[in-house]
């Protein structure tokens, strides 16, 4: 018996076979989870809401990167730059042309997708580390263009973005932005989950597993690779648009190579080729980073022998050690750990 579903859960229709949520317990957990999530602004301060918003925006970009890396096997080191394309498209459209949020969002997604396709063109001839170098170039080329197109982007200075609004209602606080960001994140995750279950998603997986075999079976490898780049960067564009509206002031230093590298790290730590993995990876890295930054300044108070000046800069060291230890003990990512947990729960009280 497969352990993909709980004991005694059988499909009697095609709808049931395709369902993401199947059991009563899963429905209850989903509804309770959503109610908890959407009521968060009622009992949380701005700090928690900022963290949730920030995690959700990063999550959208990481889910997109996971489609490219985890499902199609293409490496990208330019996801933050593509997010920058989305953010600057939003900034330019909203700041200079007065576009509303609802027009800026799809435009940003489309623009990031198109730019992604352009930088995905080398994937016809190169892959692996060589492709990562091509996408690394995207990070530098895009940022240089943004810095030098001063009249449009503001150059090194900030480009201010007006708060999104529906009629007279202005989304000008973390709690209000929460109601834009979180539903869109859920929608994008749902979209990603479904893409990988379609013929396109299966073609991506075939290309990842063996691109030669995929081509022999009739998959147009090049066009599917470009589609993967397009979809991945549409996600980055949506994330960039939401980031621009959350910060309301964007500059090139918000989309750095380090951000791109960490997005890749989130995919690895979560587990490549798993939407749940992207979610876990993003929450783990962002949460750990924040936890370390919160805890480190209080270390000298807890251990008086430590001199404040010698300890407070240790945050990144602690962060790195935790990540290394994690990767040693769970190289297949958090998604694998989650699968192991689910399997043991479903098989309980039996071991196998």
């Amino acid at each position, binding site marked *: 018996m497969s352990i993909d579903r709980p004991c005694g859960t059988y499909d009697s229709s095609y709808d049931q076979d395709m369902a993401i949520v199947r059991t009563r317990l899963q429905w209850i957990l989903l509804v309770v989870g959503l109610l908890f999530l959407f009521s968060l602004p009622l009992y949380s301060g701005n700090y928690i809401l900022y963290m949730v918003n920030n995690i959700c925006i990063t999550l959208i970009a990481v889910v997109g990167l996971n489609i490219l890396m985890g499902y199609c096997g293409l490496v990208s080191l330019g996801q933050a730059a593509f997010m920058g394309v989305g953010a600057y498209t939003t900034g330019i459209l909203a700041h200079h042309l007065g576009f509303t949020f609802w027009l800026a969002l799809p435009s940003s997604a489309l623009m990031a997708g198109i730019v992604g396709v352009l930088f995905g063109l080398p994937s016809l001839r190169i892959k692996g580390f060589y492709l990562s170098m091509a996408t690394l170039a995207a990070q530098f080329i895009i940022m240089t263009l943004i810095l030098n197109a001063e009249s449009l982007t503001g150059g090194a200075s900030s480009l201010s973005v007006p708060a999104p609004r529906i009629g007279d209602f202005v989304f000008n606080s973390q709690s*209000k932005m929460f109601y834009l960001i979180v539903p869109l994140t859920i929608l994008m995750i749902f979209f990603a989950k479904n893409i990988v279950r379609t013929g396109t998603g299966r073609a991506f997986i075939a290309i990842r597993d063996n691109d030669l075999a995929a081509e022999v079976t009739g998959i147009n490898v090049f066009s599917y690779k470009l589609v993967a780049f397009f979809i991945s960067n549409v996600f980055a564009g949506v994330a960039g648009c939401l980031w621009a509206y959350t910060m309301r002031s964007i500059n090139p230093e918000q989309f750095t190579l380090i951000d791109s590298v960490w997005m890749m790290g989130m995919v690895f730590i979560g587990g490549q080729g798993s939407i749940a993995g992207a979610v876990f990876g993003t929450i783990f890295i962002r949460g750990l980073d924040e936890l370390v*930054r919160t805890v480190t300044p209080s270390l000298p108070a807890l251990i008086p022998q430590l001199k404040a000046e010698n300890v407070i800069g240790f945050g990144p060291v602690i962060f790195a050690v935790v990540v290394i230890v994690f990767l040693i003990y769970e190289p297949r990512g958090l998604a694998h750990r989650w699968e192991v947990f689910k399997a043991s729960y479903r098989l309980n009280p039996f071991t196998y």
Partner: protein
Amino acid sequence: MKVKITCLSLIVIISIAASLIAGCAPAAQQPSTPVPAVKKPSAIVFYQMLDVSGPYAADVQGAIGSVNDAFEYINSKGGVDGVPWKFVFRDTGGDLKAAVAAYEAFKAMDPPPLFMQITESATNEALKDKLVEDGIVAFTSGAVPSFMYPPRNQYSFVPSYADVCGYFMDWVVKTQPKPIKLAFLTWDSVFGRAILTDEVRNYAKQKGIEIVAEEVFGMTQMDVTTQLTRINDKGANWVYSNILGQSEAVVLKSAQQLGLLDKMKFSGCQWTMLAHTLTKLAGPLAEGYTAPSQLRNWEETDVPYIKLINERCKAAKAEQSSNWIQTLGFFLMATDLYNGAIKEVGWDKLNAAALKRQAEKLNKYDLGFSYLTLTAKKHESTWVRMEQVKNGIIVPIGDYEMAPNLAPVAYR
């Protein structure tokens, strides 16, 4: 299946709508009760986000120890109207997202921040609107024109980088052989590019200085020979950089490798002229390096403030750094602002507007390490002087003067 999806959609829509209505509804009116006598807070919390583990780490050396020491000193003298200062700190690692998270974390703390210091230019840029919305007065040591203007809740206790560059131009025209062919070699960042403005370019033209090149490099780059080769090809005889001292050492070392130290002279913004980075890292290459600076130096012990800082730094067994020089003077000024505001409006009405009114009264205020003049139109200091490295020590070669105003034309 369809029924389940419909039910789920309804639940989600209802929960979103309910939360939106609840979250955005006006606060319930409190029944009117007699106003209790105003109690002083137990402490004035100073919240600070600093990069102590990223690219700015070398420059903020000693920042934490110096703040703690400054508070110990001021609190021993009675603090603000008897209320002590308290320090809460978070490391940003130079990451903007971490800096914004720190800002939100501070806002969620009790008491919420009223007065802050933000050092990194990119963070300043990102938070400038939020400071106004949240009623927080922020002082910075990174006066980028795009952050400083329009003047709102942001102030700088150092002159803007554009003004400092203008002051350098005044000096170079007055004292150096002509023609002056100037090249900018600066960081590729908000901070570094703060001198690449039309106001600076126009001022150079007005002074008869030809700007022959504008080159940028990365904050952590350890070699700029490529940029210097291009600058040399364009015939520059002066190179000015808006960078920190550790990168100026990189510029000087690259110039030495190319044999350019005799061919062109080097200068930079106030943050290049730091003993704990420039002279320590560049060694003999820094000899004769001349640049504007607003900071007094450790050796000026005839100034009582500098004498005091020397004593306190020695007592704390801390390494000498520019942060030690600035911090106590900055908080003595902040204490004066608070005292003035409390005298004017009392503890109960103490807010950003009251602090701003006090700040804008400062006229050649003696910070100990420099002077500070702030007005409603200009929220940044204007006092600066030329300094030079002689025998490994930074010494002043002129008195404090007002830098030219190179603020965006619309705000002059």
